[in-house]
């Protein structure tokens, strides 16, 4: 008995080993949602997005091509009339330039005949104009220099000359055409009992003289 008990005590417990013959590749996917489902859904989503994007681009391209054709048609339709319009415009511009050049040439600050009439309207009895120089161009710009004599004693003559200048400065006819009226000189004439004067009138738009 003792021998039998001893042998039981010495016995080793062994697990029930057996080889694993399962082929996992062939076994069915037993998860609740199969992995293949996720893979397929992802693949379909990506493919669908790409297809939609490509489709959208194709539609857009077709639209653009349609617009291009439409524009080309309009160009073809209007080419003849446009060429004619451009030709006429070119001719018109060329002729207009000629007219403008001629108009610019004849543009007068103040025609001399008008100036003489203006002078006659404002000339007082005691003042006599001996010369008038009108310069329509030059370094000092358009200007007029009037030279003449004023009758009377020195005192009276200088007063008359000043009065005459005031008339020229204030007469609307003159202020419309001249920027400035200034007395250049007023000297007694050695030969007679009168004063010689020089009046400088600057046309409107004439450059101002630089003061040194």
């Amino acid at each position, binding site marked *: 008995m003792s021998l039998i008990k001893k042998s039981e005590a010495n016995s080793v417990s062994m697990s029930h080993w057996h080889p694993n013959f399962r082929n996992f590749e062939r076994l069915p996917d037993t998860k609740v949602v199969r992995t*293949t489902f996720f*893979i*397929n859904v992802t*693949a*379909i989503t*990506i*493919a669908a997005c*790409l*297809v939609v*994007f*490509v489709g959208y*681009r194709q539609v*857009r*391209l077709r639209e*653009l*091509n349609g*617009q*291009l054709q439409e*524009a*080309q048609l*309009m*160009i073809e339709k*209007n*080419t003849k*009339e*446009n060429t*004619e*319009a*451009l030709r*006429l*415009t070119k*001719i*018109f511009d060329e*002729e*207009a*330039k*000629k*007219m403008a*050049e*001629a108009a610019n*040439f*004849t543009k*007068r600050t103040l*025609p*001399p*005949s008008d100036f*003489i*009439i203006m002078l006659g309207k404002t000339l007082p009895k005691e003042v006599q*104009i*001996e*010369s*008038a*120089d*009108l*310069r*329509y*161009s*030059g370094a000092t710009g358009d200007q007029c220099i009037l030279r003449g004599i004023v009758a009377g004693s020195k005192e009276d003559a200088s007063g008359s000359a000043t009065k005459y200048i005031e008339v020229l400065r204030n007469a609307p006819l003159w202020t419309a055409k001249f920027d400035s009226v200034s007395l250049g000189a007023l000297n007694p004439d050695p030969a007679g009992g009168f004063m010689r004067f020089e009046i400088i009138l600057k046309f409107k738009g004439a450059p101002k003289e630089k003061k040194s």
Partner: protein
Amino acid sequence: MNGNDIILLLKKNPVGVTCGIVALLCGVTLYLGAEAIDDSRLKVEASTKQSQLMINNVRNAAGLSLAKQTEAMQRAVKQLDGRLVKASQLATNLQYFYRLESETGVKLTDLRPNQAPRGSSGFYIGVPYTVTLQGTFKQVMEFLQRIESGKHFSKYSAISFNKAAGVEVASSVLSVTINIELLGTP
């Protein structure tokens, strides 16, 4: 992996493989047509712009009666050309002043053509003359007004009025020196 394995894989994942092929085709299409839309858009913009420009040109030309206006402008320029002097035709040009002399009664004491400015960039040039004349106030005024509104276009450079030398003041004879340019062609 041999052919059988591939076929097996295809058979096993038909959806995935199909989607992969579709994606690949889409990628190739996108790659090949990457700049097609931009190119087309640029072409459309250029063509539309050109088309709109042409439409505006045609519409404006029609609205403004450009043909009629051009015709009128051409007629006006033709008339203008008829009033120009030719710098080379000295005798004809001087005749203009002599005719004015005989018509107004002034006396031309000097009549000289001056050197025309060179290198004019415009269509026309000013043909310059110096005219010295004597006459009564009325004659001189008529002479000036005839020049200002005469056949030829004119521009004064300078004009000087003086009492005629050796003539009594009471007679009102004026001596006038005019620097004038007549609009013309070389």
